């Protein structure tokens, strides 16, 4: 599979979960393991551009596919706007759900650059945060959307 743009080839057990493959075999510990039942979303990563819960994806199923994790959001020393938004709007406290939230937020903004509050809440509704009460996460995504809108205006001028 390709992980964050790099080819990875490994012999693995057929039952190995993608979340454990990323964490234990590749050392990408930004993706977290929170519930085993696809309820909490701490393990959310992208599979071919779509957010998935890596605790219920077999690593073997990802063979030949593209996986993207939180470690790939910052590129060339530039933080992704969603990362900046979470810092600016206090969208995190303990930081455990944050990587999954960031990956979902990035995917949302890629397909919907100016989501409503309700659309943001629906997008992250498969993920649990025990610290923020979600309002600041919503504001963080809105901040990123506004930032990107501003950036695009600047680019086109």
């Amino acid at each position, binding site marked *: 599979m390709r992980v964050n743009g790099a080819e990875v080839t490994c012999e693995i057990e057929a039952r190995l979960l993608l979340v454990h493959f990323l964490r234990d075999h590749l050392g990408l510990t930004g993706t977290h393991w929170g519930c085993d*039942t696809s309820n909490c979303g701490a393990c959310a990563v992208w599979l071919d551009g779509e957010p998935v819960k890596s605790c219920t994806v077999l690593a073997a199923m990802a063979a030949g596919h593209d996986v993207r994790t939180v470690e790939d959001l910052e590129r060339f020393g530039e933080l992704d706007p969603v990362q900046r938004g979470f810092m600016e709007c206090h969208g995190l*406290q*303990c930081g455990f759900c944050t990587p999954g939230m960031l990956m979902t937020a990035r995917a949302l903004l890629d397909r919907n650059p100016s989501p409503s509050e309700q659309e943001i809440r629906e997008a992250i509704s498969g993920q649990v945060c025990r610290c923020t009460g979600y309002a600041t996460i919503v504001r963080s995504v809105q901040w990123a959307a506004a930032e990107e809108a501003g950036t695009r205006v600047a680019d086109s001028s």
Partner: protein
Amino acid sequence: MSRFVNNDLRPIGHGRMLRKEDPRFIRGKGRFIDDIALPGMLHLAILRAPIAHGRVLRVDISAAEAHPKVKLVVTGAMLADRGLAWMPTLSNDVQAVLATDKVRFQGQEVAFVVAEDRYAARDALELIDVEYEQLPAVVNARTALDPGVPVIRDDLAGKTDNRCFDWETGDRAATDAVFARADVVVSQDMVYPRVHPAPLETCGAVADHDPVDGTLTLWCTTQAPHAHRTLYATIAGLPEHQIRIIAPDIGGGFGNKVPIYPGYVCAIVASQLLGRPVKWTEDRSENLTSTAFARDYLMHGEIAATREGRILAIRTRVLADHGAFNGVAAPVKYPAGFFGVFTGSYDLEAAYCAMTAVYTNKAPGGVAYSCSFRVTEAVYLVERLVDCLAHELDLDPVELRLLNLLQPEQFPYRSRTGWVYDSGDYETTLREAVRLAGYDDLRREQAEKRARGELMGIGVSFFTEAVGAGPRKDMDIMGLGMADGAELRVHPTGTAVLRVSCQSQGQGHETTFAQIVAEEIGIPPADVKVVQGDTDQTPFGLGTYGSRSTPVSGAAAVLVARKVRDKARLIASAMLEVSVTDLEWTAGSFHVVGDPTMSVGIRDIAMRAHGPGDLPDGVDGGLEAQLHYNPENLTYPYGAYICVVDVDPGTAAVTVRRFVAVDDCGTRINPMIIEGQVHRGLTDGVGMALMEILAFDELGNCLGGSLMDYLLPTALEVPDWETGFTVTPSPHHPIGAKGIGESATVGSPPAVVNAVVDALRPYGLRHVDMPLTPSRVWEAIRGNAQPPC
């Protein structure tokens, strides 16, 4: 209207600055327990009891031991040979590390396996064959003391029933007398169901015992690393100086990570036996079924008042379900935690509580989930009772509270149960909440909707918290006084390192504590590094829970910074060649009184303290200090909450439409972080009021063992929070700050329940027990409301 400003780089501390810990978390570079990997590390998994109560007849580990990847299998009998089968709890009870005689709750630890990888360890658990003789399970606290009920704790010498303890507070006779002459008495049974803190990161540990030098390093999900170190020295007989506890980044705690769990002890034993690092991490089911639950109080409350609504007294009987072992993490003199503050925010003539706590075949715990040592249950009791009284007298719940709230001139106020509230201006806070909510408009809207058959409810709660345990004359855990240390070093170039004994689980200590020091010594928060969570690197103290970090460690940080400043003043007087009495400290520098051009700041003083040349007589080199802070009292933050709900008459589903929270936590250090703490607690409150319950069937099977069954609020169940604040400083805290970490968890459940009950008023209902799920509300509407357990 905040009087605070952004201040990241300015030489002043308090204010809304962004968090210093965020850059690592938003990059996925936090370091949580399961991120720790050491060379040669093995993985531990625990076999747990499938039944709630049964005798352990036989444990056959031979097949597991034969698994090619297994390095070690240990049973309770093997631990017993080492004297480690039982360990003390934080409440002077004992708890089995691994079961030897009986299993006493579903999910109890029975044996463990250490293997080369986590999958193999799990595989090997399947190979352990345990034979049980099943015993009847004691599940219902109401019948736990009945004759003939099996005795759960037959391990305790002479134990003949399931009584855990009896406790009372207040004046029974005086309270009975007030009740006897009161115009109005309202009583109500209410259940605060068993719930679970469910931090997103489960518990875990990595133990690394060095067989050569005898040291034990334990990375561990702990909110109290120093207390854990002392207890491991006691439990395992290790010399305390050879134990190092490191709490790395903690993925939420909420009290769930205060106790010592059997898994930590198992990891230590495994590393000792194998001479290799051993990691244990729970899965979600293990976390929900075996670690510290919260609440589980069955309460009968009574409130006495005059016909006009003047509250006279509160009387309550409580049946507390403590599970199979008394694992309550509270100061030892307070077996019911701080439930004694059930008199709330009101000026009463008398109050009395009688409590019986029982053992049942459920997991141990009780004090957790941001409960402020049971203030949560107390506030729920009184705020529901006040609403029941309002219902009975047909009074508006805001008006009834305004009639009875303590007045500013009554502080410090000694409650009828002996708690000394430090400061408050309650009416101002309640009126601010009423203003922000547009309360009168809401009532008008409700009246219109009721006329159309729509169900809209407005719920009010006013709570007083008791946090920052605590004065060591009264408060200790396992003989450890609840004081906290701080150590501050200012480097020659004027940057600083603060070492504290508390431990963040997301509260932002690296930011808040840097701000405290920055404010006191006049350097930017960016120049203060905060070290926490490593017993070899920080001074002794009891850690972070019960909203005690800012009240206790925060005070220690203030005072240690002032101690540094006092020394700096001596050096400044030499540098400016004036007497110390001619110096004043303003805006982060020492100034010569009457000559504004003559001043010197900490940076120049720090270099002088470390540089060449003589210092004033009696002044040592360097610029650092250390101290322990023993709080003279708790701090008493408070707040007024207003919740607006809509109930769908067709489905009985409750929607929280608005939530207004006005909190007073005294001096506010970082308003952004404070609001974040409030938002979290409000979400807890909605979760507990509407969704969360750890229920059990009659066999003692836990029905909430996964996040499919134990429901937590998502972004769709909570509104955009509306927060406000007032500022009434604590008179005894050095900067007037009070704790805020749990206020909203404490104050919001009654607001939500009061709102739902208010919405259901057309059905004549005065009370419905949590959780207010659609099915439970549906039954209530039809007159079939039953307690949830």
